[in-house]
């Protein structure tokens, strides 16, 4: 357990400068945005020049650059991400209301792509060059080149519009809300197509990684030893080759957390899922910069937390992860 703690502490120390840079960058973007919160407020509610001056003073926008930065940091310290003009509510409340839907969709997509991807990768890598390997590898290459929003749109046309197997969008049936287990099934039903469009690309990625890991493993000495011992081929494939091939996949899992959040922007827009990704898009269309940056900060923190978890997992899986640098 002490090894895991060392990794955890190092990772936490590591994320402090990262967060500091992200926050400074966000402040720079906020400053660079044309028009400030007062302009945005006036665009919605209107007001005269007197009100403008009063609001600027009240919100501290007439102060110096450093004072504004200080006020911004102090507000962040109180978990105050500012005011969303588009929703007329605090940014943090809007973001937290939307976050569970995105986390649910991402979690499902990660599980699906990880399990299906690694299994198919083993299936392809057991006999490199076989017909099964060629077909799976070609499919993975094509999927890997497919934009998730387009895949989502095509799945929507085929399975929701033409076949009516799945709902057209949303996270649950709003007209007739379900309760209990029926609600869980309803949400799962709504999530099938979005999870497929988000997850299939990563399935392709994990398949490719797993396959190349297996190909690598077949050349190594310990596999030859396992063969020489007379172990059954399936046992060698799963217990020996696949276990080592899994390590790069786990690393990639952590690196892809940000990419999945990015993908959720377009997928949630296609399937009208009220999550953080679509919130980012709504913030863009309504020119609500504080809201957009709020989504940005919360999703960055989510990525850092995900990387943290993956590092701990990795330390458990691979005993070679050094305690000291």
């Amino acid at each position, binding site marked *: 357990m002490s090894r895991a703690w060392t990794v955890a502490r190092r990772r936490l120390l590591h*994320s402090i400068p990262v967060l500091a840079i992200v926050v400074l960058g966000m402040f720079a973007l906020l400053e660079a945005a044309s028009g400030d919160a007062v302009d945005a407020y006036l665009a919605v509610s209107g007001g005269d020049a007197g009100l403008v001056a009063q609001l600027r003073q009240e919100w501290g926008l007439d102060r110096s650059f450093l004072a504004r930065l200080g006020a911004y940091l102090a507000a962040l310290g109180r978990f105050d991400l500012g005011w969303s003009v588009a929703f007329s509510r605090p940014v943090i409340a809007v973001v937290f209301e939307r976050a569970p839907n995105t986390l649910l969709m991402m979690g499902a997509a990660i599980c699906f792509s990880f399990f299906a991807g690694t299994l198919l990768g083993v299936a392809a890598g057991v006999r490199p060059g076989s017909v099964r390997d060629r077909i799976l590898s070609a499919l993975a290459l094509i999927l890997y080149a497919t934009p998730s*929003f387009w895949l989502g749109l*095509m799945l929507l046309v085929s399975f929701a*519009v033409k076949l009516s197997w799945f709902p057209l969008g949303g996270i649950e049936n709003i007209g007739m809300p379900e309760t209990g287990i029926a609600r869980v099934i309803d949400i799962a039903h709504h999530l099938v197509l979005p999870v497929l469009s988000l997850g299939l690309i990563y399935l392709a990625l994990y398949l490719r990684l797993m396959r190349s890991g297996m190909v690598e493993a077949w050349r190594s000495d310990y596999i030859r030893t396992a063969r020489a011992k007379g172990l059954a081929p399936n046992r060698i494939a799963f217990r020996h080759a696949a276990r080592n091939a899994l390590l790069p996949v786990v690393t990639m899992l952590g690196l892809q957390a940000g*990419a999945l959040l*990015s993908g959720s922007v377009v997928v949630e827009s296609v399937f009208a899922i009220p999550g953080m990704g679509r919130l980012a898009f709504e913030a863009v269309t309504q020119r609500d910069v504080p809201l957009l940056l709020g*989504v940005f900060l919360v999703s960055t923190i989510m990525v850092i937390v995900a*990387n943290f978890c993956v590092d701990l997992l990795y330390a458990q899986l691979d005993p070679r992860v050094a305690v000291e640098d």
Partner: protein
Amino acid sequence: MRAANRFFSGGGIVGTMLVAGVAIAALLAPVVAPGDPLALIGRPLIEPFTDWRFPLGTDRLGRDVLAELLHGARATLIVGGAAMLATLIVGIVIGTLAGFIGGTVDEALMRLADAFQSVPTFILALAFVSIAGPSLTSVVIAVSLGAWTAPARVLRAEILSLRRREFVDAYRVLGMAPLHIAFREVLPNALPPVITLAAVIVANAILVEAALSFLGLGNPNSVTWGAMIAEGRAVFRSAPFLSAIPGVAIVVTVLGVNLLGDAANDAINARQAQV
């Protein structure tokens, strides 16, 4: 196997053909489809393969889908190429400085890279384009913001392994300026692994640009495949082909670039194994 043979194995040939096809489409766009691809020139919503004047049909405003597709190839390749150049230049400069100077500069630049890698790159791109305003330049910068860390890290690692070599010491003794040694003497030796990243960067740039255009944040002055998909979405129940066709074009282009990149990677690895 010789490096060249390695390159022209299966995937390399298919990749070359796909990318060449898209490049030819982009070059021929003004010849095959002269004039403004966004001009309203036909009856709206003609199905593909039914009217020889509009082989791929027309959209809901009566624009020629084939003309849009060809001009879109242009926009896609321009964004992909420009983003690759910008990403590589930024990555190479930062990676070389970090690797060669070392110390605090290295530490600071690598923390910066950590920060950029912790951020969901597409949301960063979205924020940047919406604040800077949609244009070709802002899309290219937005793509590069999320991509420069990969070449920077690869190059830094490469430079770190090179800078202790004798030839660097020899140049130092000769009295050459450190930056001159870094960029003129060490950098060229460190480039091959970075070049293999070029295809990945182009493929990623095309996908990010398509997603930005799909959300209405692409370059407003040109036809883009992402914007075509978004446009077709308005009528996707009655005319799904409008969204399907540009999507296939994106898949074909990205697939070609990836295959080309894999083949180039194999060829460079084979060459390095030979040396």
